[in-house]
């Protein structure tokens, strides 16, 4: 009897251990790293036949890193394009071209061709990204201006061979040093889409074709870079559809309002010498807005505070002798920022897309009032009166007290 019981006990233990091992260690639905093809950026276009055309940029781990000259021998990424009726199908079809299993969690960019959002709206594309378990919600969404996302993903960058890494570098740089692109992840994009009184915006992306290099000297093993790319501006949506664009400075105008500008350069005419330019480096800025509604009349007041240093002047200044120049320079910077803000708001009003969130402000503070305005917001928004108050404080002037002057 006793060995029998011992046997039962051991069997039970073994079964438990096996089950726990198979399940917790992920042996069941396992994914080995050498069997995966990491998608680094994904582009979606409309194919000539009207389907979804998906372009994936895969990392080529073998060509990454290593010796310096190796990078110039082989591109560290490769691009595959498939077609499908849905995003899911098109993604699975990448398997026709990729010997390894396409793997999405490391993807940082979802780039869409401009036409596709104008014609189809967002619905057919976003669902896959937020429903599937693989895509990350912290990825960025971008709209490629005037070219297709397929061509965009072929772009290469000097200095950083893996183009999705390079794109991320440019994106971070623009967000931290310029503020000319919107800082929006897919999560925030979807939140804007679903929230009351605010419309989504996405990063704008542009391909820069380069003139072919005729005089190739040295190693002809690899083609020269045909095209590079950059980011900038914002794609503006209304509901599901792409309705227009904000250029870089208009996007910065929007970012001033939202308080998302971190560090940037502001230029304005030199006080007294209108043909010369002064530029000021803004170090930090805060922005907020208030919206008041009385009946059909809605007024928004925007308040921006910025702190900066003098960047450079084209007309010599002597701040020791003319202390009142500070206020003039500050006023100049203020007028530029005000101009950017009013341009941004005007463009948004022309497009009829409340990307600032004026409606959201009312909804959050006064949901009852929003219920009465909601239906007519399309008519109310373009007529909102916006008053802007910008304060710029210039602190320092660099390491010289007085400009150099020729005698």
């Amino acid at each position: 009897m006793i060995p029998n019981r011992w046997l039962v006990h051991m069997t039970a233990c073994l079964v438990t251990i096996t089950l726990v091992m198979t399940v917790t260690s992920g042996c069941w639905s396992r994914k080995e790293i050498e069997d995966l093809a990491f998608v680094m950026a994904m582009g979606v276009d409309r194919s000539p036949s009207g389907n979804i055309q998906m372009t994936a940029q895969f990392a080529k781990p073998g060509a990454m890193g290593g010796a310096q000259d190796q990078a110039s021998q082989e591109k560290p990424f490769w691009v595959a394009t498939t077609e499908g009726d849905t995003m899911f199908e098109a993604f699975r079809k990448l398997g026709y071209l990729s010997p390894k299993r396409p793997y999405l969690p490391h993807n940082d960019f979802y780039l869409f061709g401009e036409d596709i959002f104008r014609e189809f709206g967002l619905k057919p594309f976003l669902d896959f990204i937020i429903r599937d378990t693989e895509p990350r919600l912290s990825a960025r969404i971008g709209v490629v201006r005037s070219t297709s996302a397929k061509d965009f993903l072929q772009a290469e960058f000097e200095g950083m061979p893996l183009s999705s890494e390079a794109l991320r570098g440019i994106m971070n740089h623009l967000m931290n040093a310029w503020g000319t692109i919107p800082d929006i992840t897919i999560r925030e994009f979807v939140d804007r889409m679903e929230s009351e009184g605010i419309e989504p915006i996405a990063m704008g992306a542009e391909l820069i074709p380069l003139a072919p290099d005729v005089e190739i000297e040295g190693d002809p093993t690899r083609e020269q870079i045909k095209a590079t790319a950059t980011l900038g501006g914002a794609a503006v949506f209304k509901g599901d559809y792409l309705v227009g664009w904000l250029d870089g400075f208009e996007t910065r105008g929007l970012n001033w309002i939202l308080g998302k500008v971190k560090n940037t350069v502001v230029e304005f005419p030199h006080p007294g010498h209108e043909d010369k330019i002064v530029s000021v480096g803004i170090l930090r800025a805060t922005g907020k807005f208030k919206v008041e509604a009385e009946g059909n009349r809605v007024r928004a007041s925007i308040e921006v505070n910025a702190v900066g240093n003098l960047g450079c002047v084209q007309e010599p200044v002597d701040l020791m002798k003319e202390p009142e120049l500070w206020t003039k320079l500050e006023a100049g910077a203020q007028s530029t920022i005000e101009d950017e803000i009013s341009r941004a708001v005007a463009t948004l009003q022309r497009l009829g897309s409340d990307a600032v969130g004026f409606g959201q402000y009312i909804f959050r503070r006064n949901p009852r009032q929003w219920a009465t305005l909601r239906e007519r917001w399309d008519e109310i928004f373009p007529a909102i009166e916006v008053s802007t108050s910008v304060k710029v404080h210039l602190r320092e002037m660099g390491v010289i007290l007085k400009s150099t002057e020729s005698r």
Partner: protein
Amino acid sequence: MKQQERGRISAFQYMCILLVIRMTATTVAFPFMTGHESPTDAWIGALIGIGGSLVLLELMVRLSLYFPDMTVVQFSQALLGKFFGGIAALLLVGFWVFDAAVTARAMGSALVNAFMPETPVLVFIIVTVFFGANGARQGLEITARWSELATVGVLMTAIMLVLPFKAMSFQNLLPILPYGLSPHLKRAATMTSMFLRLSVLGMMIPYVRNKKDVLRYTRYTVIVSGIVLTAQSIALVAVFGSRAATSAVPTLQLVRQITIGEFFERIEIIPVSLWLLNSGVNIGAFIWASSLGLAQLFNLNRFEPLTYPIGGLAVLLGMVLFKNYVEQVRYLIGLQPILVPLVVLGVYLLLYAGFIFKRLWFPKRTNSGAPAALEADPDDTK
């Protein structure tokens, strides 16, 4: 007197078991947020639910403390007579088995949905239920010790709520009450029904060593888990805005948002393994309670042989109850807020009725209808 359960637990362990039960699979699915209108001010609904649960659980514990050495199965027979008391007890036992199945399925479905779509949900259910049933078979003390370990999960959950701070925007918490109070009452009903799963405390109280602390620790349970759940709802809204209500596994998605310094990412495996452990302990407590209840109801000598069959029943139920996760969520937010209060509160209402009736009509002979298996005279405690 047949001593089916010999173990004794401390009041702290009692609290740990209750905390683990409250914070498990439901934490993954988070039904009190999911699917309800007006997610932005969900904390209002949470607070209403916590207040209600505090009162209801207090009443349940107080009734149990009148019979400090009897489980709810035993004193229901003492109060309502052998037949009706038996039926009431059977209802509770049935609910525990059912809820073990629901919990197992919720955990399994969440894992399948979020991590391993190819793995059959049956595997996760079998693993957690087997773990729980095995613990239950060894008695309450084992489950209690496991739960002490698993309570770390509560702490972990609390930390997880702070970590995605980069993605949080507290402006999302506005507006307050845009759709009036009614969505919050529904939400509070969901929350209360989740708290009523703690009705297993009726089985545990006789085995708590220090009965003076039971009431206090029950309140702690409600307050601690309530605070964590409220904080969780706030964190979810701060990160996801209105999307918090449309996510199937909001907590998992929240954990996925954690990014610290671009390298501290993808740590979801830590909370997930803890939730797996929690579900196991939770199911263990339910299986222990239902098998002990059945043993006491039918006057069996031992309850241990019942644990595996009940576990098997829970696995079976977990598989057949819901076709998919959507049905499960629909149960959690639609049917559960009606069904669970109906069963648990209905039974306790009957028990209270019986209790008051006995008090009024037979002030001296409170115990006249008690089964032979009585250990002590409940009048001692008055």
